[in-house]
């Protein structure tokens, strides 16, 4: 699974085809949904590549947003803890998602 994730991460950041990047982001989202334990060791890489993909064309960004949603859900049970692995990325994710929400709106 780790090898597959590495391949998807590479494809999402470098593949020239938009549909391929879209599907790759979706696949990472499915991995996060169905195999959350395989995401935890590579959280840094996955969050980085999905965060960067938020600035891609709407379809890719939409799939990346959905994938991030599933990654965040992995840590939903740690919401009442003092800290969680998400803490490190919290501000950057918040800012990037807000910028994505504002992409086509001038507020």
């Amino acid at each position, binding site marked *: 699974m780790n090898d597959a994730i590495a391949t998807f991460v590479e494809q999402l950041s470098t593949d020239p085809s938009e549909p391929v990047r*879209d599907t790759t982001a*979706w696949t990472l*989202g*499915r991995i996060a*949904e169905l195999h959350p334990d395989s995401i935890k060791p590579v959280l840094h890489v996955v969050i980085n590549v999905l965060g960067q993909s*938020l600035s891609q064309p*709407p*379809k890719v*960004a*939409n*799939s990346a*947003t*959905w994938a*991030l*949603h*599933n990654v*965040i*859900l992995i*840590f*939903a049970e*740690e*919401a*009442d*803890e*003092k*800290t*969680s692995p*998400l*803490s490190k990325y*919290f*501000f950057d*994710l*918040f800012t990037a*998602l*807000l910028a*994505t*929400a504002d*992409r*086509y*709106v*001038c*507020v």
Partner: protein
Amino acid sequence: MRPWAFRVDRSLHFTAISHTTTATTLCIAAGFISDDDDDNLLRSAAYETIGELINAAPVDCRPCIDAFVPKFLERLQATFSPDFDKEQQNQLQTALCCTLENSLNVLGAEYRPYINPTIQLLFSIFQSKTNTVHEEALSLFGALIQRMLLCASKHARK
């Protein structure tokens, strides 16, 4: 044709959006969905994920949410500008009401400084005639009242 996943509310699940991705692509190819709908889907998805991020926030991330609440209120205020078309206004107000409710639930008593500005904005929303937003706005209003009652009962006990 508008995909049903377009609307933002708490019952919307991304699994549903993911399942409609292929269908959406087909609809665009058939000319049923414009690129504008893609943008709208992205905006809804981004706010939904922000909501989930807020819900999953551990204690050390709460100051960050606290810092972003004024930005959400600013955005909600900005939706009353005539620059927004009705559809965009509805979508943004719905998403922002959900986000503010998530923030209120996580921040609890720390949301107190934002109660008044939130209520004022909610009154402005209630003056409009958009049923879609009213559902989310009422839900936020209910959560605010609950929070205020909780604060009042704590004071009464003292």
